[in-house]
């Protein structure tokens, strides 16, 4: 589980790197969404996948 301080630091760093004007939004809501996303990433990670598993094809030549 990611702690709130780490998530807030991630949010601010990513906003600076991506030039996202998060001050025009609601930082508390953004952090709440990041917490939700972190939980979803954790659920995805619960499934053991082989290192060589291929991602879904999203491009065809």
């Amino acid at each position: 589980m990611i702690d709130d301080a780490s998530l807030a630091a991630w949010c601010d760093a990513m906003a600076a790197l991506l030039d996202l004007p998060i001050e025009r939004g609601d930082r508390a809501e953004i952090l709440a969404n990041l917490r939700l996303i972190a939980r979803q990433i954790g659920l995805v990670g619960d499934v053991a996948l082989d290192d060589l598993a291929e991602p879904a094809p999203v491009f065809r030549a």
Partner: protein
Amino acid sequence: MSLTLDVLRAAARDIAAAVSSGQMSARAVTAAALGHVDARNPQLNAFTDITRARALAKAAAIDAGHAPRGALAGVPYAVKNLYDVAGVVTRAGSKINRDNAAAATDAFVVEKLEAAGAVLLGALDMDEYAYGFTGENVHDGDSRNPHDPRHMTGGSSGGSAGAVASGMVAFALGSDTNGSIRVPASLCGLFGLKPTYGRLSRRGVFPFVASLDHVGVLARSAGDLALAYDAMQGRDSGDPAQAAREAEHVLPLLSQGATGLRIAVAGDYFRRSGRPECFAAVDAVAAALGATRDVVVPSAAAARAAAFVITAAEGAAFHLSRLRQRPQDFDAAVRDRLFAGAMIPAEAVLRAQKLRAWFRGRINALFEEVDIVLTPATPCRAPLSGQKTIEIDGADVPVRANLGLYTQPISFIGLPALTVPLWTPGEHLPIGVQIIGPPWREDLILRVAHELERKGVAHAPVAP
């Protein structure tokens, strides 16, 4: 020429037959439908744009023999406002897109419907940029459920559901990335079809998550779904995700019914986190079909989570320039979710895409053993408009995050899926059951839906 058919309740096929035979004029049908839009739309807020002049011109052309009297001759329909309609700005539920020029041409599937003789009445309300399950929109107002306007339509194709359930049109186009056709179909008591990913061209449809976006249709019968779906099929080099398959028409197959199909009810994930009425609806459908088998869709929670991650990341990437330049012009709830989505690490997105391929393999194996899987379409009936939480298993859970609980794992791997509407005696709001088939077998899910209609289990009355 006088009206001999109640065009506000009639099936599309009956309207087309009446117009094609000369029993009714397309002009009379169109005028009646536009009159109903004028009467009902102020309360229901389904339409954002009414293409009156275009509709009347098309109807006159049909009557004069200058436009085709095809399978949808004179049938009134409308499209979610993310479809390009020539001369109309494709707003996609947003404030920002209103500054764009009007579309120069129709979307591919709109062209196909026009060629079949259908008459477009306008464009329909939706959640901003299709990122929502409620049908609520801060710019255009919330779409209202015709069966009780105090309640939400569901979304994001909320206006599409409202227009069909109120009888303003015979069918409407929606789009479905995570459940945006199947959810409002459930909440508004309609049949709603999301075909296989890559089946129908999305050219001229404003994207949300390109790797998950589908176009589809809502109607008041399985037959009308099949009629519109068949008309929209066709190869189009303009959508790079469209599969290299020829049209496979389903309407002639509906009468085959469900006999002989191996039908199962999904357990585990799909029997949790819902209100009792959603499971009762699945049981009623299973009983009507004689389905006694249960199956487990493996890792459905992880699949839903992966769909969530891909949606957030890909949606944010698509909107990044708008987020930087006009953050104040987004719906705040959409903006803050997109901000968060932009910050997802690449490894998490790639892992979600790997899970997608893995999950598809597991489900393909499941479909070696069964032909159809039944699940709830939504965990509850339509909440009140503006309602933030629903009570499930004694706990209050967020409406917005949970309406797509049962649809997201299915669209995640592009399976064809369809909502059928059920009504419980004493209840004035419907609830839907999701019928899922293997890839490219829209015929099977439509046959089952048609069978349920024939047995009187599923039906979609026009709201009084």
